[in-house]
């Protein structure tokens, strides 16, 4: 049972950040799906409801996604999903159920850097930036790689660069956590291949990504790229699969996603 001593609903991001850093047992409340599973005693809970961080806004060259935006909003946003071949909707669709996706939020998921995250896998394949109250704006990749630090994630920014993208996840039961996820994108000779749920957190397969951007894709080339990705990533084991199996799955999923992206051209 998680408990909250005191609740604050700050009116500015700065105030939220100040409370978070001043109180040692303070925490930001997201959708609470994961928070409630623990037995954390939160002294001061910070609710961001008053900061107008819920929703997806289209700008001339980017999408702005507030931290309190739910997965269901990502799934059903009619504008966002005309971009990137509907990548984000595809990524969040298999997650539990409609009710769950109405509850969980983008900000909490990204900030928590969950290894099993479908969303983080997909976001990494796009030109995504994270906006933090204190840390400012930085590439998602940089955020994921930096050590944990108290901060308030306020928004994501995704560049509307016309990228083609495809998403593949592999699950046994359809509403289970993925055994492996992959997202692939391609833009003017720049390829990106992301592999997640390894079960380590999602990361870019750098060499395979470079190869992807390089030249014409035929079936043999795609096999090579997939094998390259599988070879360069590290995989681990958990209840859902061994490292060895994940490596094999990686080849299949990357090939499938690359095939999809190539077909979009």
């Amino acid at each position, binding site marked *: *049972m998680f408990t909250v001593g005191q609740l604050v609903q700050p009116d500015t991001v700065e105030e939220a950040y100040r409370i978070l850093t001043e109180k040692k047992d303070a925490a930001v409340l997201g959708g609470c799906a994961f928070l409630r599973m623990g037995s954390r005693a939160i002294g001061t809970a910070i609710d961001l409801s008053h900061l107008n961080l819920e929703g997806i806004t289209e700008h001339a060259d980017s999408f702005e996604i507030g931290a309190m935006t739910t997965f269901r909003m990502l799934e059903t946003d009619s504008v966002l999903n005309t971009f990137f071949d509907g990548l984000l909707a595809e990524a969040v669709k298999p997650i539990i159920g409609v009710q769950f996706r109405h509850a969980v939020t983008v900000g909490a998921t990204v900030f928590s850097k969950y290894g099993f995250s479908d969303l983080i896998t997909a976001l990494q394949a796009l030109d995504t930036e994270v906006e933090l109250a204190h840390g400012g704006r930085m590439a998602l990749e940089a955020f994921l790689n930096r050590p944990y630090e108290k901060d308030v994630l306020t928004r994501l920014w995704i560049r509307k660069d016309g990228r083609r993208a495809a998403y593949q996840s*592999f699950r046994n*039961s*359809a*509403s289970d956590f993925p*055994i492996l996820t992959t997202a692939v994108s391609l833009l003017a000779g720049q390829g990106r291949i992301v592999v997640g749920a390894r079960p380590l957190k999602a990361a870019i397969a750098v060499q395979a990504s470079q190869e992807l951007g390089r030249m014409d894709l035929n079936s043999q080339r795609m096999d090579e790229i997939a094998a390259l990705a599988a070879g360069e990533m590290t995989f681990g084991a958990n*209840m859902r*699969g061994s490292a060895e*199996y994940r490596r094999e799955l990686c080849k299949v999923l990357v090939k499938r996603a690359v095939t999809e992206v190539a077909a979009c051209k």
Partner: protein
Amino acid sequence: MRKLVGKGVPKIDGMAIATGKPAYTEDLVVANALVVKILRSPHAFARITFIDVAKAAALKGVECVLTYQDVPKQRFTLAGQSYPEPSPYDRLILDDMVRYVGDEVAIVAAVDERTALAAIDLIQVEYEIFEPVVDFETAIGHPSVVHPEEDLHCNFDIGMKKDQNIVSSQRVESGNVEEELSQCDFVVEETFYTQANAQCMMETYRAFNYLDHMGRLVVVSSTQVPFHAKRMLARALKMPAGKIRVIKPRIGGGFGGKQSSCVEIFTAAVTLKTGKPAILVYDREETFTCTTSRHAMRLKVTLGADKDGYIRVVDIHGLSDTGAYGEHASTVFMVAGEKTLPLYNQTKAVRFMGNVVYTNKMPAGAFRGYGATQGTFALESAVNLLAEKMGVDPAELRLKNIAKEGEPFRGFKGGILESSALNRCIETGKEMIGWAVKYPRRSVSETKVRGIGMAVTMQGSGIANIDTASAEVRLNDNGDFTLLVGSTDMGTGSDTILAQMAAEVLEVSLDQIIVHAADTDVSPFDPGSYASSTTYVTGMAVVRAAQDLKQQILEEGAKFLQVSPEEVAFNGHTVRMTGTDKMISLKKLAERLVVGPVHRQLVGNSTYGSPVSPPPFIAGFAEVEVDKETGKVELLDYVAVVDCGTVINPHLARIQTEGGIVQGIGMALYEDVRVDSKGKLLSNSFMQYKIPCRKDIGTVRVAFKESFEPTGPFGAKSVGEVVINTPAPAIAAAVYNAVGVRITQLPITPEKVFMGLQKNSTRS
């Protein structure tokens, strides 16, 4: 012409429960009930060397903290079985020895949940930690003995050798297996593993209780076994059973889980200590961690057949994991043999033997199928293997070898199988699935192959010579009826089905029957709803009670009309002298009998137990699509053709079947109770233990082929359990037929299939 039996009438309580009316245990809790929480062992095997509850007890709002020092020391079993229970009395309410991660250490009761949980954190415990027995294949002769205590008690010999961690050792055989095998032209041998599964009823375990104005303990519990729960509480608490009353409200699913009384003892202990009402609701994690699961088994099957195509030998050697306590240990194992050996009756020798062992894991218990599920996976997988070896169609092999109606049947010790439509089930199933066209495989793309497979199964209907149910039907003052039964409708619709039977006999409409179940102060005795018994055993009691009442109505009607009972007929509304206008309405008759001058309220009653447990049968067929690149098995279509005798309510029987099939699919493909090397449960939530979701199951199609069981009510047998048995072997066969990978260890995960494919490709 039947009016109600055979009709798919809606459940009598359907609208109420569907729309969320308060009807379940927690909805009915009395005011100011203390909230009970349990401190549990973090160790798989340990002895409590020190426990201090002073701080917890001193916390404001805490009413009671109980440790092993504060509770009666009388060993008992949670298994709800007819007395004398075959499950060993091997547990105490609280023990200084803890035997699995989650075993109870202390009981706390407080004014609210928050306080109770805070108190739990304040209890200090020190343990002497022992090496746990985790892997059941190492249990026999393990240096750690799970139950070293001297006061463990068995009501009769179940072959216990507790010093070797053996709960039960069994051997049943007929004929000489070795000799007959040597005569066989085809012999196959394979070892199969079935995993532990969780029942996963949606309403978790819960009970509350209070002392009534007479000082009696009233227990309200979501239980399948009110009468057994009462007896168990009386034993464990060392109090007279007459001082206990158990009431069962609506139940949110049971599947055998609620045949073990996991929570009642704790609330009862609190209420007896404090005099105050108390409630305990297990959350999902506790339900996964600290109740019971299906017994995991290893089953080695040897089959022998002759060149004429007859299966001559069935030999099964098993090992079953009962976990830390022996709930249902010997009987589940026994059933694994009992419901497999008789299926094929051209056999000359059959044998079932092996051991059930204690380990330091959550106890196993009853779960729909009760051993038959495990046995069926092993036997039917072996039969599919045998068919391949013999080069015959597995459907034909079964048609040739199954016990057929009118034939001698090992299940009845040589008696005749009075009802079976299994051959028709197989024929119909073959047509429905498209066996002729689809068997064994079709390639649908470069990477995907479809395969089909099948399995057959039997279960029982109640426990022969043991289950005894009583029923009463009362004619009320206003001319309607109250049906009193002690069975426990856990969503199956048994209350409705029993009402249909009573109404059919009495020739009245369903709404004239009020069903009451179950309250041990009021209901006639019934073991409860388990072992596929309610329709068959309680049903027969209801039919006879209704017939008894009907006869009394005729007699009283005739008396009023001043004629002999042979001269009158009852049509549900009136008792009339045949061929005349002389009549009395039921309403008038009831009024005269109950409140009027006659002074005789009519009550029909019956007590029934059956000397046989007639088997329902199913032929199950699966079509799967296997992705050769990933090993992923997609179930496209499942066909189950059921012989449950006369179908009393086709809608409810269909839903029972579909639901059971999908639980079987879960067992086949997804569900796996897993622990780490220290015995800690990993699959402790719906996030980690995946029951099938809506996207996982493809299409499930069900058909009925009726037989007529002469010992059953209106010719009915059971349907509750048999439905879960076929998916695992049928799906495993379909996977093999698709891609040549034979999975012998459930569940059939993509990784296992993939690794099998890799192995096959390096071999060829």
